[in-house]
């Protein structure tokens, strides 16, 4: 199920229109060293089809092609969604943010004060789930 959008990628070829030329800052100009296109930066991108946004993610300029003076751009589209399991990969349970917020000094009264009938939903001593 999590594959639905998490692993989406697509490579497309873009023509050298004035808009694309400006977006890519004349990256095909081999004599340009300064202030040109920055290939390492994250570029947000979206794609619409029939008025419906079918893709939202990032765009990477993979390569450019120049044939008889005609330039084309090969770009990759990737979803930048990180799945929950990727986001928490390697995180140890004991280091979960907020756990130390439950620190407290136990006493006999505090202990018995947690004995409520309805679990985490109920009122009682200390922090509760939810």
């Amino acid at each position, binding site marked *: *199920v*999590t*594959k*639905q*959008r*998490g692993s989406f990628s*697509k490579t*497309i070829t873009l023509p050298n229109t004035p808009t694309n030329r400006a977006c890519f800052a004349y990256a095909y100009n081999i004599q340009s060293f300064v202030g040109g296109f920055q290939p390492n930066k994250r570029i947000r991108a979206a*794609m619409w*089809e*029939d008025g*419906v*946004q*079918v*893709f939202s993610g990032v765009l990477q300029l993979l390569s450019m092609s120049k044939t008889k003076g005609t330039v084309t751009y090969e770009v990759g*589209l990737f*979803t930048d*969604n990180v*799945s*929950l*399991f990727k*986001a*928490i*990969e*390697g*995180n*140890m*349970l*004991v*280091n*979960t*943010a*907020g*756990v*130390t917020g*439950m*620190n*407290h*000094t*136990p*006493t*006999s*009264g*505090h*202990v*018995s004060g*947690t*004995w*409520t*009938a*309805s*679990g*985490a*939903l109920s009122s*009682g001593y*200390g*922090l*509760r*789930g*939810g």
Partner: protein
Amino acid sequence: MVYGVVDAAGFTDILNQGGGWFQAPWWRLGPSIYVKKMVDLIFAEAGFRYSSTFFNSAFFNKLVMPYAAGTMPVNLSGSNILAQSTGNVTFAGSTNATALFPKDTPAPFYDNPGYWVASSSVFSNPAVATRWNVDVTLTVSGTTAGRFGASMSIRNITNSTDNAVITGISFATNTQFTVRFQNVTIPANTTANIGFAVTAGPNFLLSTFSILSGATVQWTCLENPVGIGVLDMRTALPADVKQSDLLQDLQKMFNLQFMPDPQDPKLLYIEPWKDFYSSGSVVDWSQKSDENAEQNLTNGDPNAYTNIVFKYKDMGDYLSKTYKQSYPLAREGYGGRIFNTGNFYGKGDKVVETLCGTLIPASFSTDKIVGRTWDIDGTLASGTVKALQTGYRLAQYNLVEGQTEWAYQYGVSGNVALSVGILKMPFVSHIDNPYAPNVDLTFGQPRLVYYNAVNASGSPYAYTNNNLYNTYWLNYINETVSQEALQLELTMLLSSVDIYQLDFRKPVYYGGIRWRLLEIRDYLVGQMKPCRVTLRRILNLTEFAAKSTSPPRSDPSGLFNGPIDPDPVDPGYEPPVNPELPSEG
């Protein structure tokens, strides 16, 4: 969090711990963390949210992770005391003197627990007995130089007795010496001070003597049950478990389905499989299939497993070991379940094992049923209880009304435990209530339960088959591995609107019946080209309805209920004819 009664180190109802009565001191109970709380913290830290009826249900809110460290750690250094005398104090030679140490601040002197009354140099013990090493370092001057004899004591002021006495101390005047009282127990709610008396020199007594300024007393704590201080709740969690392990175990237990919101990938829809598909309306894809393209149909289980095994991790405690000894061929272990697919062509087993263990309840010499996590060296009657770290377990908490009161020890007075009788037990285990079992966190009924729960007429309470397998996995297994199971891969022409509105929760209508959408492959964005779609046929299975089974009470000693009748859902289950019941020794 909740301080459920979990026996991590042996309560008094175990024979070699006393037996015959049940008393739980508050400092032996550790806080269990609600699973819901941990899930919320994990999602918040990762920047995700969830929408889940199940996670917000009353049942899920009762799931807990029992205190992983077993018993609460005592920060002994938080109980230590170092105090100093501030001037020379002179006594007559025959005086039974009191050494004074009125300076417990500033550093390097300290009174961490606040037990030292500096103005009177009196140690005031808390409401439970404590144990100490006490070092007294002093220099004594006298009217006569030479070596002398002395005795020292830690007096019990409350009872006008001595907690500890050391006699025959030989010291030289004007020479610093140290006396150590080892392993001294100070009774609860008593006060104490340090006594010093010159007994005899080689030939004579000192006529007068002085304890010189700069003498110190160091109280080093060996045991102080109430000196827990601030409890670091990280000790409540297993140190070697990842956040993803918890979520994966929940997925394995409750057959959870995770689906990101198409428009908001940080929002996850999470429900058990049995509920996941009920929230979506059917989408009709009858006209989208390319009937000329190849269709692949797979009957039964595409993976062709012989068995599907659900099991909890074996935690190595006394009860799980006993169960394993009683049923050595039951490789699913206590609370596990083996489902035989009946597939002649099946090869190998699919093992779904959690990283967490379950918490097995038991009663011993009383009728008190609580979760137990300890192990034992030797027999139950005479062996030594080994407190184990409870480790990573998942259980449920319920406030259960027992048949008789249990003793909650809230303190000690002298040598007498101060307890209060409580009828309701904060019960933590895989079963919700041994006196009225309704929800069980095992995958399958244990063949034996280690407690004796009988009603007023002496009959054991019926056990429930409302467990994880039957409730969350049964229909899923039937739909995926039974002979009616059918998987279909076909070619469809899906529009961008179909993809935009894609929702795996919605059943797909095709060929006159409903299917579950499993996968879409080769969909090309921006191009109206066919793609491959995999569907699984929805079987019209009725929802599981729990039944109860009766333990026949074949244990001649009547100590345990069990073995339990077969689960009606699994008639192939064969309970042992002559189980080797664990004995009380």
